[in-house]
């Protein structure tokens, strides 16, 4: 197993009396693509901005490549490409000028690779930043984050405002970074994107990290649904107590049941086989459904989820 390139240890930050993040601990290995999920105001941006030394933590530590993010911020920023959540740049410079400026501040970049990125995202670098659409502004910020081939990419909602084609292009760029052994730490609301690109996911809620696991692991703990239509009404109690059944709902006057499942469906299949089955459908929720369910309980993560880390 490779050493962690990002280490966050009991990081705590508040804004005056307002909660930012509380005791967030996390390790990301080199070469990982890590998705950071959470609703608005959960603390994703606060965590990222502390890593970037834009905020100073009240307690705890954040390290990138073993270097303290606050004490060694300049050294760390040589390794990092960063996309802020709300990019704001000089509106009077063109996209090309902005990219050149940041390239100079980084000590120079490979111009052919820069041009390749510009072509790839179809950015017109001759227009002033203030004349760009939201998506094009995002492209400028994405290109400046990738253009020096950083060892670590820290991306705060990077695809916000991009059209689906450019989102696909972005997915490709992240995959290439991963294949090159680089690390990507991205926050997102677009769960399908996280599902596609990330190897591990962390979920933050109310400033606390409530879940870290592989994308596949998250799916393992998710509930799924089975709907069975019978030729005649069946007693619902038959299914309620079975192993793996978390909930039962009667449909079509009792001739169909919808089962919320957790774990193996073996007992359900065997019980259903005692009656004439018309149809059986299983619905596997997306990561988005898992995510939404994770937040539907008011203030507490569901026990079965909280227990699996």
């Amino acid at each position, binding site marked *: 197993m490779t050493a962690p390139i990002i280490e966050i240890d009991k990081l705590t930050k508040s804004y005056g009396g307002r909660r930012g993040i509380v005791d967030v601990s996390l390790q990301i290995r080199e070469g990982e693509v890590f998705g950071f999920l959470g609703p608005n105001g959960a603390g994703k941006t606060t965590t990222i901005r502390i890593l970037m*030394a834009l905020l100073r933590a009240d307690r705890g530590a954040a390290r990138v490549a073993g270097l303290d993010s606050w004490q060694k911020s300049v050294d760390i920023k040589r390794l990092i490409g960063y996309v*802020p959540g709300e990019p704001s740049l000089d*509106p009077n410079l063109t996209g090309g000028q902005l990219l050149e400026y*940041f390239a100079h*501040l*980084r000590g120079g970049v490979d*111009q052919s690779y820069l041009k390749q990125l510009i072509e790839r995202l179809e950015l017109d670098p001759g227009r002033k930043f203030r004349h760009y659409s939201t998506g094009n502004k995002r492209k400028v910020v994405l290109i400046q984050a990738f253009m020096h081939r950083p060892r670590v990419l820290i991306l705060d909602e990077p695809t916000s405002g991009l059209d689906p084609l450019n989102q696909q292009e972005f997915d490709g760029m992240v995959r290439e970074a991963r294949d090159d052994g680089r690390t990507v730490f991205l926050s997102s609301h677009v769960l399908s994107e996280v599902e596609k690109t990330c190897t591990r996911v962390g979920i933050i809620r109310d400033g606390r990290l409530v879940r870290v696991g592989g994308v596949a692991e998250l799916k393992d703990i998710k509930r799924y649904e089975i709907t069975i239509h019978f030729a005649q009404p069946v007693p619902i109690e038959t299914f309620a107590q079975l192993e793996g059944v978390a909930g039962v709902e009667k449909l079509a006057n009792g001739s169909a049941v919808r089962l919320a499942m957790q774990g193996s469906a073996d007992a359900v299949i065997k019980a259903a086989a005692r009656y004439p089955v018309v149809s059986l459908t299983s619905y596997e929720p997306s990561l988005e459904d898992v995510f939404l369910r994770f937040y539907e309980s008011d203030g507490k993560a569901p026990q079965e989820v909280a227990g699996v880390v």
Partner: protein
Amino acid sequence: MWFSSVYLKTLRDFRVPILGWGLGLGFLMTAVFAAVPALLATPAARASIVALGPSFAWFADPIKIDTPGGYATWKYGLTVLVVALWPILAQSAMLRGEEERGTMDVLLSLPRGRFRVVIEKVAAMWSALVLMAVLVGLLAFAGARKSNVDISLVATIAYGLNLALISAVFGAIALLLAQFTSERRAAAGWTAGLLLVFVVLDMVHRVVPNTLWVSRLSPVYYFNLSKPLVPGYGFDAGAMVLLLGLSIVLSGIAVWLFVRRDIGGVVLTRRERPAVRAALPAGDWSLRSVYLRGLAMVAMPTVWWTLGIAGFAAWMVIVVKQTEAQLKSLLQGSALGGDILKAGGGDVATNTTILSLLFVFLPLMLMAFAVTQANRWAADEEDGRLEIVLSTPQSRLGVLLGRFAALTTATVTISVLTLATTSVASSITGIALDGGNLVAATLSMIPLGLLVAAIGYLLSGWLSAAVDTGLISFLLLIWFFISFLGPGLSWPDASLRLSAFYYYGAPLLHGVQPADLAVIVVAAAVALALGSYRFVRKDIAV
């Protein structure tokens, strides 16, 4: 209540400027009324000031300037026009600023028409100006009563309203120009430039014969037709109606354009240049470092401020030469002359004394320039424009010092060009100025400008850009009052030392005073050091 309509919400947004400008100008008039009786105590003093008036007619019409109301109107005839700066800033931002921030989209998504939204906003601005005018009028009246100056409440309120009207005109110009510019800053800059042009146009007829028609092109001319504080002069209702009409017409055109154009767009769209994909790298010199980028950002303002400051200095040299004989006889023979000489720092043996007095305005202007640039730094940090810069391997200290170094370069440039312009003007007019002292007078402005900038940088460590700018502007105003009203009010030396202008002194007469200069340099260095200490530790854009 304040959030029940666009009108009330906008009025609420203006509450600080209403109070700030209203109280500031009101107290200014109160201070003038308190100081003037002492200045006009003797018949000789009154006679000398009456005689001095025509020599400075270019500045303002000298009418009954041996009375408190006449003196206040004359002395602050132009100075009070700074009040127009607020409506210029506010109305350039009223629509364009909201469009830049994207908040106009949200506002117009509500079930209210564009016309109604903009009318409510304009109405709020006019209400704010009226409230400010009333505040100025009431405070001026109270100040007059306290100092036993015979001025009626109607006169002081009319004075305030006249100020509100000229402010409304420039606000309306800013609102109109903002329909043609894609940035509020550009609209504000153009309108401020127009304010300067109109002030000069108004002056023309007082300096050059048979040019009244030129001055009539300026709204400032119609503002100056009303002098409610001058006993027996009153106000010109026609001129006030004309100013009101002008602001209504200009605002009306702005509203008409706004309801028809694209939100975020401009009225006359320039054709965009074709894409220059092959133009990378651009090879622009200004993109090579934070310092050079800062230099490019400050370049254009530096050009305009240099024109203003160096132009003013050269003009002063020419004016002093033209009025040489009258000024000498006036100042030598009056008590007031003694006070003026005290403020100027010398005797009337040479024109240098008069120039020394007038040169005090140069550091004031340079410090105002520094205020605008400190505001830009604070706004860049507040708006998140430093975020990606700070994500590159640049230290925070390096970024701050890079920007401050660019500002330092700009202030040095302005001062050096002022020195060059003044030298040329003095050699053309034949006014003999000590070369070393002239160098001292122009270059010792630099530490004052840097002091203001450093204080602005320091305060931006805690305060928003708006509050930071307001505070350092207020500080500048306080220093100005201390140095220009303090001696007249016989304030102790310890109080006068609280003003940075005290340490500027009269370098045109006495050269550099190393100890005084050191005070400013040390103060600026301490403020910059503290500002740097704060910046490298603070949360960015929070």
